[in-house]
């Protein structure tokens, strides 16, 4: 288990101090993959480095399992080498002056193991990542994917309870990344370690995580399972950051079931209210939650109508921009490619429609 409570940190530079972490709290369940996701500069890497012990927060508390490794109040600060963690670095950090075997056996140095036990542990770790044959290979002669595997074996060889992964896939090409993603997930399940994973790639986060903590500006915005964050975000930032999103300006005109009804340029839609109390609000729905509607349904609830402004053929689906009164929405409509200038009606699944407080930012289209 990883437990972070109210972590705060500021860097003092030449131009005053910059707050990089602001009361960051979360709890990663044992044996799960917990992901810190967010745009660059949001504080996710700093958080990970604080957990690792490579940086020291100004305030807060960190517990790993039942061990308290950092507490500003009690003056506890355990060095990185005494936290018993495994970590895969973004650059892999494979030591170039050692062989694969020497790299992997390094974390066993402090454990006072017999030679046979040591060799068998190294072999097992390399077997896990499928590199047992390369044990004597000098580290500089490895491909990117092999380095990644060696880094993983090295992180796991001492059988840590917790594995930290700092953007481990960002230096791989797309095909290899897909493969390694599956492999990491499989390994994590098999060994039952708790994995703390840092990434800026939302697709990676959605694919790998049991729980995602979305971060922005040094704060945790929202925590939840990938599906929940994607389909039913609480915060507008979450809705906008994960996947494609439409925010359509409108006015709340009444109740509809357990939600509200919003009048927009395209029509009336029902949705659950997430934030704000004023009539002025933004309707949120994802482009692929819309479908073509028959013309005779125009004007009914959850159906919008407009003119096709732009279309792009994407293979599996079509990207369609529909315009009305200067507003635009983006739809993902499979099947027939609509003509530009055509009048089009679309239905939105009210199950996935949300209503947020009006933002000053221009609506996404």
């Amino acid at each position, binding site marked *: 288990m990883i437990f972070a409570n109210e972590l705060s940190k500021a860097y003092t530079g030449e131009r005053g101090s910059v707050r990089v972490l602001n009361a960051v709290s979360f709890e990663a369940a044992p044996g799960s993959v917990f992901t810190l996701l967010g745009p660059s500069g949001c504080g996710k890497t700093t958080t990970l480095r604080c957990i690792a012990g*490579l940086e020291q927060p100004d305030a807060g508390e960190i517990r790993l399992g039942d061990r308290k490794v950092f507490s500003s109040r009690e003056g506890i600060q355990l060095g*990185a080498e005494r936290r018993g963690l495994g970590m895969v670095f973004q650059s892999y950090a494979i030591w170039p002056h050692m062989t694969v075997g020497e790299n992997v056996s390094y974390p066993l140095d402090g454990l006072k193991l017999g030679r046979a036990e040591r060799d068998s542990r190294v072999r097992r770790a390399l077997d896990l990542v499928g590199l047992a044959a390369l044990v*004597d290979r000098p580290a500089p002669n490895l491909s990117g994917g092999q380095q990644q595997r060696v880094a993983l074996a*090295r992180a796991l060889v001492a059988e840590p309870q917790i594995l930290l992964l700092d953007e481990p896939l960002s230096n791989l090409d797309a095909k290899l990344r897909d493969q390694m993603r599956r492999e990491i997930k499989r390994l994590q399940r098999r060994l039952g370690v708790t994995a703390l994973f840092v990434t800026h790639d939302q697709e990676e986060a959605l694919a790998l995580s049991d729980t995602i903590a979305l971060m922005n500006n040094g704060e945790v915005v929202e925590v939840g399972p990938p599906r929940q964050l994607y389909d039913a975000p609480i915060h507008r930032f979450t809705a906008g950051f994960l996947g494609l999103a439409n925010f359509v300006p409108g006015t709340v005109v009444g109740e509809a079931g357990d939600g509200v009804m919003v009048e927009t340029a395209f029509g009336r839609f029902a949705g659950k209210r997430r934030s704000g109390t004023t009539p002025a609000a933004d309707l949120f729905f994802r482009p692929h939650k819309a479908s073509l509607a028959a013309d005779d349904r125009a004007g009914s609830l959850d159906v919008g109508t407009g003119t096709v402004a732009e279309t792009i053929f994407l293979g599996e689906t079509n990207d369609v921009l529909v315009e009305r009164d200067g507003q635009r929405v983006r739809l993902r409509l499979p099947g027939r490619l609509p003509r530009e200038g055509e009048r089009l009606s679309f239905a939105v699944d009210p199950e996935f429609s949300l209503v947020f407080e009006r933002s000053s930012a221009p609506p996404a289209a």
Partner: protein
Amino acid sequence: MLAFAATVLVLAYLTLVPLALLVYGSFMDEPGRLPIEASALSLQNYVQVVTDPATYRLLANTAVFTIGATALGIGLAVAFAWLVERTDIWGRNLLLIGIVIPMAIPNMIYSSAWILLLNPQNGWINDLLRQAGLGWLTFNIYSLAGMILVQGLSLASHAYLLVAAPFKMLDPTWEEQSAIAGKGVAATLWRVTLPSLKPALLAAIIFFTVVNMETFDVPGTIGIPAQVNVFSTMIYAATQPEYSGLPDYGLASTLSIVLLLAAACLIWVYQRQTRHAKQFVTVTGKGFRPRRISLGRYRLPLTAIAFAVVAAISLLPVLMLIWRSLMPFYMAPSPKALGLVSLKAYVDLFTGYDLGQVLRNTALMSITAGIATTLLAALVAWLVLRAPVPAGWRSMLNRLAFLPMAIPSIVIGLSFIFVYLTLPIPIYGTIWIIAIAMVTKYIAFSSGMMMAAQMQISPELEEASRLAGAGWGRTYRRITFPLLTAALVNCFLWVVIHVVRELAVAVMLYSSRSEVLSTKVWSLWLGGWVAQASALGVLTILALVLLLGLPPTVIRLRRKLRNLREAAAVPAEA
């Protein structure tokens, strides 16, 4: 952190303590006494320095010598860098080897060789000129002009290494663009090439101005007998009873402080210059293909001139030195004199002059200084770049390590006399005082070198080790240190080469028990044992050539070893 505090203390001990005693000594006005023995302090030395007309002569000499030698040295270096790196001149590799040979010749020995060639009585070149009826062309080396000539020629080789790199990396399309705009070779050189290299050249000029201002070897060997003094020789003379009766440490300190301040100002300008130099990047990296300028009909004459100059810079002095070492007494090189050739001077060195002791001293002193400087520099580099302490502390450490850059060698020697005659550490008169002074002398350069190497090691490599359960100490030992091996070896050899060459520091601190190669050549030469001095000079040059050849050899060996290891690892793949 303990290591941080300890390093600051060691650096302070190596630089601030000697400087403090130097300042203290400058307020002392009793000749023959040390700072610690001073009964009263006064401004007497400063008054004397300011009011004595000799000071202004000293200033003028130093200025003319410094500017003249810098102009000659940098001028030659730039000319050769352009010819070798940018044009289609013939025999570029030979020219390159020729121009860097003086790197292996200590300046005191280089000066002696030129004295043999150009002294007014029987200098070989002067003799030849007189025989050819060109007596009016003879040149007296015992003059300010002679000092400038020798220092300038020796400097050309050092400066070449500094200015050749920017010439090599200059984007050739700039020159091509100028050619397309209808400018000839000369106009392109003058209007495009040199101006775009201005920041690099300016940095080199300032740097070598400091070197010339503080150098002792050439002024000591040529200037003292010629009675042309500069600051460094005047400081030396003030401490030597044979020149001034009683050693006047107070006056020497005051002169040192004047020289130190001048050097510090220039070093400050140099640092500013090199910091801003990054803004004028001349290297593009993209679309880079070295293209050489065709010299056309000047190709042959320029090649001839270049080879003649290189022969004068490198070949002539070395050959003269070898010739003189083989002659029992001076004979101009001729077929007739060949019959007199003997190895007697070399035999003498081992039988009559206790060369074994000198070699042991030199080896022990230079290896100790080399190891100590390299390790301290590596520690400073790591602490400045990686230590988990506030950034302000780290930049303070950086500045402390860079400080000795501004301290002239002769001043280091003088202040170390004070330190070890004051503190109850009984190493005065041993090789250890010289070794410690050498650490002070070379710690700034070495720290810079090791910082460049440490920067090449990604912090994640060290962090990965900490995550793997290793503390700072084991991480440094197992990861950082092995990755620095090549840089450590290079730094060590660099220090050893310079320590063996260095005369000014050693000449202030040696005693009959602690003679090293540089001081032995110096004392043999002063004692009139010219053949023996020449022989020892030849041996020194040989040793330095071997040391200079080592780093490339080490790199080649390492590469070969790695290839072997890779070859052995290949079957594992199958």
